[in-house]
């Protein structure tokens, strides 16, 4: 047990990939913000679906088909509840956060926005929470406005948050936790201010869902997008949780089988929410796998997960700074989630990541799909170490040792 209530040794035993060796060295995986590894419980849940329950969901009128549908819909209920939505119909399954945000931008925002309307974003957003809004703005004549960043990696907010919005603000799109800086944003306060002018609040929960307790309603999210593969689940799992009202207003953006009620020669009528957004055969086995991931996280307790992330983040910031690295993002772990972006002396992140890779230490190097962040801090790229429930302080020690080796190669 570490000091936070997680039995990390026991957790690690559930992750088969962590036993792999590279060049005789054990895998030190510090890139969970990109994608997390999967416990055997998730791998088995997905495999069991294929072994025992596979049929197309919502179609087969035979016992096996009913089982598949049941497993899929049980997964919907469990995942929605995990994120605070007691009504399973509020969860639209998608391939992940990107597809979820695009559904909102295309299906909800585009039919409603017009010239002069405003979409408020932040410079901290992942490209997946910028580009769909740029496309929506271009299509509708709406205007994009950005909340800037402070030197220490926080949103640069006015004392009165209502100053961020006007009568013309229709959308606030904001990340709950930055993938590039680790910053935890005050989503509820922003949402309250946005709601006071009637704007709809779209929350990118890709980084928050794996590491903090989430209650979408307490957060003030009209839409909450998340990715299963970052929270111990399979790739192509995840979804969008909306309020019933906003989902009812949302137009389907992909037409096809199962999303309709009736099809005529010249038009069709839509199936109910959320099925009208789920055309074609869905990621049934993957969402069933995500339900197992959610069960795994629930058994650990998300408060304990968050405490573990905070402990690793505190340790990493301190060790990296002591080693001479410049750390981007907030100093305090009360507002800094489990990702630490840094620049080590004069070693370019690409060079650093490659040298660390020789020691089987896996970090991310690049712009992290957040070029506005990189531009804000005048750097083309950063190195990023990010954590999950299976990481240890010893792995951060190995990171720092590998940094020293990179420093020797570059003699800096």
């Amino acid at each position, binding site marked *: 047990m570490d000091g936070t209530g997680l039995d990390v040794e026991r957790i690690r035993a559930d992750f088969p990939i962590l036993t792999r060796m590279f060049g005789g060295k054990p895998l030190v995986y510090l890139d969970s913000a990109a994608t997390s590894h999967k416990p055997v419980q998730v791998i088995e849940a997905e495999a069991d679906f294929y072994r025992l329950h596979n049929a197309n969901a919502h179609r087969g009128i035979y016992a096996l088909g009913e089982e598949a549908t049941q497993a899929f819909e049980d997964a919907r209920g469990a995942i929605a509840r995990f994120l605070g939505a007691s009504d399973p119909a509020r969860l639209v399954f998608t391939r992940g956060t990107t597809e979820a945000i695009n559904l909102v931008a295309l299906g909800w925002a585009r039919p409603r926005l017009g010239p002069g309307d405003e979409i408020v974003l932040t410079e901290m957003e992942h490209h997946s929470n910028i580009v769909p809004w740029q496309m929506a703005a271009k299509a509708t004549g709406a205007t994009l406005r950005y909340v800037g960043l402070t030197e220490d990696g926080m949103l640069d907010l006015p004392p009165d948050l209502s100053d961020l919005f006007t009568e013309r603000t229709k959308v606030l799109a904001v990340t709950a936790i930055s993938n590039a800086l680790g910053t935890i944003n005050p989503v509820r306060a922003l949402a309250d201010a946005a709601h006071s002018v009637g704007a709809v609040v779209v929350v990118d929960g890709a980084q928050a869902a794996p590491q903090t307790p989430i209650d979408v309603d307490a957060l003030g999210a009209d839409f909450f997008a998340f990715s299963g593969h970052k929270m111990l689940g399979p790739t192509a799992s995840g979804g969008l949780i909306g309020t019933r009202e906003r989902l009812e207003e949302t137009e389907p953006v992909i037409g096809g089988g199962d999303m309709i009620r009736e099809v005529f020669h010249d038009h069709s009528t839509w199936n109910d929410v959320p099925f009208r957004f789920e055309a074609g055969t869905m990621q049934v086995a993957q969402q069933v796998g995500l339900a197992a991931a959610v069960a795994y996280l629930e058994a650990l307790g998300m408060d304990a997960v968050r405490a573990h992330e905070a402990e690793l983040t505190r340790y990493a910031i301190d060790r990296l700074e002591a080693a001479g690295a410049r750390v981007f993002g907030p100093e305090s772990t009360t507002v800094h989630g489990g990702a630490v972006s840094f620049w080590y002396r004069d070693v*370019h*992140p*690409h*060079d650093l990541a*490659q*040298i660390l890779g*020789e020691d089987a230490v896996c970090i991310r*190097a*690049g*712009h992290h799909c957040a*070029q506005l962040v*990189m531009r804000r801090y005048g750097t*083309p*790229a950063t190195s990023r170490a990010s954590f999950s429930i299976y990481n240890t302080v010893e792995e951060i020690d190995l990171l720092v040792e590998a940094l020293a080796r990179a420093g020797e*190669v*570059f*003699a800096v």
Partner: protein
Amino acid sequence: MALDEIYKEVILDHYKSPRNKRELPGAAHTCTRNNPLCGDEIGVSANVVDGRISEVTFQGAGCSISQSSASMMTESVNGTPVEEALGLAADFRSMMAGEVEPTEERFGDLVALKGVVQYPIRIKCAVLAWDVLQEALTGGGEASTAQSH
């Protein structure tokens, strides 16, 4: 080849003491490109006299591979006929694709970059400067073919 060999002295030497890294005001051929994967940026400027590169410089920021490759490139094509420089660019790409076993006679210092072949994601870093050179030299003969994306 071990990693340390990639960062052998010649690469680090070019990275830390880049050759021909300066502006070339009024250059007839210029082009700037970046590698969207990592944000590395290379700009190449060249003048051509009688079909021969009379002067070539680069500017930019990035990792040791992209910057040393640019530095070595300027040394290897300076003073050569344009056709020869373009041929070397093609050969360099073949080397990076693992299709050609590089010789020092043909590639000089650039041989030091052959270890990059083992790291596919970084091949783009090594090739960037050559793409920019080719674009600068063949960009329709305009005074400037600067492009950024």
